């Protein structure tokens, strides 16, 4: 979780990532940030995020991003 927050902070500082639960729906992260985020997460966690997983529901909170990573690690 902390690593995800670290990446997010680096990509777009100034958002309370721990407590925000509408990162996408609240327009905190735009599509360009998502492009960076996906690339960084893939490199950091050695996973491949398929494009079908790029839906608001998977990126709306740090917790959601974490569960996506966990799910993809299992695959």
């Amino acid at each position, binding site marked *: 979780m902390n690593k995800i927050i670290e990446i997010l902070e680096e990509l777009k500082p100034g958002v309370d990532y721990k407590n925000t639960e509408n990162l996408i729906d609240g327009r905190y992260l735009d599509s360009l*940030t998502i*492009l960076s985020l996906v*690339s960084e997460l893939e490199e950091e966690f050695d996973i491949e*995020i*398929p*494009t079908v997983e790029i839906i608001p529901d998977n990126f709306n909170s740090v917790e959601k991003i974490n569960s996506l990573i966990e799910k993809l690690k299992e695959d």
Partner: protein
Amino acid sequence: MLIFFTKFYNFFFLIITFFYNLFPKKARPILLLLVSLVFFYLMSSKLIICLFSTITSIYLSTILMGKLDEKKNELLDGKSSEEKKQIKKIYNRKKKIVLIACILLNFSFLFLFKYLKFFTINSNHLLNLLNINYQFSVLKIIAPIGISFYTLQALSYLFDVYYGKISADKNYLRVALFISFFPQIVEGPMARYSDTAEDLYKGNDITYANFTSGMQRILWGLFKKMIIADRLNILVKMVFSGYAVYSGPICFIGALGYTIMLYMNFSSTMDIVIGIGEILGVKIPENFRQPFFSKSISEFWTRWHISLGLWFRDYIYYPISLSKTMKKLTINSRKIVGNYFGPLISGTIALFAVWSLNGLWHGAGWTFIMFGMYHFVMIFTGNLFEPLIRKTFVKFNLDRENIYYRIFRSIKTSFLVIIGELIFRAPSVKVALVMLKKVFTDFNIKISEMSSLGLDILDYIILFVALVLVLIVGILREKNISIRQEIGKMNIIVRWAIFYIMIFVILIFGAYGIGYQPVGPMYADF
């Protein structure tokens, strides 16, 4: 053709609403499918073979993909991780071959019916330019109704199965109904399989609540179409055919009129389609969300023709911008040009692909390609200057969410959209350029021109009042207030008075009869 369309559409709609509940539940999807196929046959006769080919190829490909996945999972059992990687690689490649073959087959229909003529004509021009004494014969082919819509909708199902988002449906009838459901096939919205396939097949009863709610939505659609769109059609035709004699402001009024007409016409068709869906208990996704309140062109495309925007985002933008090469590019360029401009490079490449295809999807013509490129440049420029604008606002301590600034942004976006629609509607690039030049250089407005646009003072008053009503409804929707729910809560007498007034307003002020020509289903030919 147009009269045919309207008559058939209404006729089938009536058949369904009258007899639907009398059919046993299990027979209802078959009834819907049959009606849809007969409708398609009456509109496009033998070309129904194209629809069948699409349905069947998509059905077989998805089943095959499902089988490949099953086989892969069987083989994976108890294997080492290295072996698993190898098996996955082999089967993913097989799946990809099926995917590409199916896409090629379906795109070949699209190419044949929509683009061949354009390509032959332009190849002939090129041969002429090169002094080669050969000309391809230009085939005159009429495209099957809604081919651009049903092909993309069918392909979205193929992609969703390919990516493992949903599993392949073994029920041919359900797949066929999803692709060919008649209200949607003409102009969309392009639904996803998970949106409508299940509900269409369920054959739920038409209930009183659903029926009235759906009819209200249809009534609202008719209001927008018959009072506004059909009336503006006269003005738009006048300006775009006689652009040479009109001044800049009138050319702009023509483009503005066209933009409003397109919105009213297209969104009213969506009201009717979604209304029919509601009657049948099927939730068809929305295609518009108050687009003219958008603060930027990119936001506009998340509110206008939403299903097309989502299609391009999910099946073109992300697959390109998140391909392996692009991801590497993003990571590397981010280190050099920073967090914002790093992903902008891959994002822009994907954006270019999206808008080239979006332009072409709208039609085989240079104006459509120009329309696509115009949007690409606008969105790209917006992205490019975003950090600068953001910094300026912070520096001068200005509030970007200030209501006046928001209104200014919406007006600016609407202006840019109107210019785009001018290009879109112009009969050729040359005409588009002439009109644009007039709009930006010739400001001599002549009041007398306004009265030569085919509408009288009463028409303008009706248009004004109707547009104010549409604007109020839009503001309420933007505030998440459902007008139909609010009316539903009212006293029965007030409620029915509102409906009767609405019906009579359409009957009295609707632009039909001598002197008027209704707008056709504008998107049906795309």
